């Protein structure tokens, strides 16, 4: 039920180091959703997969520490080109281009000591913890921890620790139509107060739509209006997509990789069908 959709157009709305928000016009929803799902489950990133403990007298069991280490985001922008693909590197420690090594050695002499992600020493400067202040374990007096961890590329579908995004969403593009003949303006203004996103404003006694894009389509304004002067709807085949990176990859890179993976998937299925 999509109909013919042509003339795909994209406009970046917001962008910073960690997130990107963009408007996509004339795209089938199923395609955008596939790209969104791929950012979560298929775009590869680095995460610790094996930990070899040399010493661990901390209160935490080895496997608990290993699990915590796996969840630490590691910078992967350059690792994507350097390391072998997840499918070939899984359980393949012999292959030299598969694993990055990270070391940690810590001891609390007297008093307690918190071991942070920033204490990890990586043998590859391109694979580093994104945040230096993630606590791993608290050591008591005299306790020691020492291990070698190995990180590889993986995909979110295998384990969430490899998912490069903390949020990937899309929503409809809101359209709010105000019938100025029916609207009472300043004397009513019920919709202005009820809107949770502060989309509507009163300007010079008249109701105006100030921030249409941040509308969440909750339609509270429609409900509260005594004269049905306000109508909330959405544009067909246009969506606002938001991708928030965990810091492992740049947000634009995640979107690009996802669309490349989709193209490859279609190509691969096609060649599979030709057989």
């Amino acid at each position, binding site marked *: *039920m*999509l*109909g*013919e959709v042509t003339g*795909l*157009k*994209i*406009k*970046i709305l917001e*962008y910073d180091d960690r997130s990107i928000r*963009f408007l*996509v016009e004339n*795209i*089938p*929803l*199923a*395609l955008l*959703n*596939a*790209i969104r*799902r*791929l950012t979560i*489950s*298929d775009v590869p990133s680095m995460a610790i997969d094996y930990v070899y403990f040399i010493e661990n007298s901390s209160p935490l069991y080895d496997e608990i520490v290993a699990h915590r280490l796996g969840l630490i985001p590691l910078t992967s922008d350059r690792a994507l080109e350097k390391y072998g693909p997840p*499918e070939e590197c899984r359980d393949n420690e012999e292959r030299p281009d598969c694993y990055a090594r990270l070391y940690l050695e810590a001891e609390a002499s007297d008093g307690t000591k918190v071991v942070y992600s920033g204490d990890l020493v990586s043998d590859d400067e391109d694979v580093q913890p994104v945040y230096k202040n993630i606590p791993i374990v608290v050591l008591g007096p005299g306790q020691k921890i020492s291990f070698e961890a190995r990180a590889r590329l993986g995909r979110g*579908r295998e384990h969430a620790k490899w998912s490069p995004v903390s949020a990937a969403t899309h929503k409809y593009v809101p359209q709010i139509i105000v019938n100025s003949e029916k609207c009472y303006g300043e004397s009513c203004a019920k919709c202005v107060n009820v809107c949770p996103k502060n989309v509507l404003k009163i300007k010079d006694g008249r109701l105006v739509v100030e921030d249409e894009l941040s509308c969440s389509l909750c339609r509270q304004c429609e409900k509260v209006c005594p004269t049905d002067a306000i109508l909330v709807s959405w544009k067909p085949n246009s969506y606002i997509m938001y991708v928030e990176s965990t810091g492992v990859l740049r947000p*634009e890179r995640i*979107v*690009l990789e996802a*669309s*490349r993976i*989709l*193209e490859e*998937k*279609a*190509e*691969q*299925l*096609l060649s*599979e*069908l030709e057989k």
Partner: protein
Amino acid sequence: MGKIEVKKLEDTELELIIHDEDHTIGNLIVKLAEDKPGVTYVAYRIEHPLIPRLIVTLMTDGSVKALDVLKETLREIRDLSRQFREEFIRAFSEYEGKKA
């Protein structure tokens, strides 16, 4: 990734198992194929959430071959995602250019 096993192949009916794929590609194929002329039925199912395989069924009224419709759909997915990427790169460099 994406090994295909053909379960049924007739001119008007096609059923295949795609290994290691999920709703991501299943929903996309179905939504794009259902509008194609000649298609009478198209659906996908995942029999068990822990078994990574996808089953796609496609039926036509005989005016087109079921396999040809599926190939056309996959070509459309490939072209659309390429178009998306090129447009994204263009929009992104435009945004960066404005900022500078």
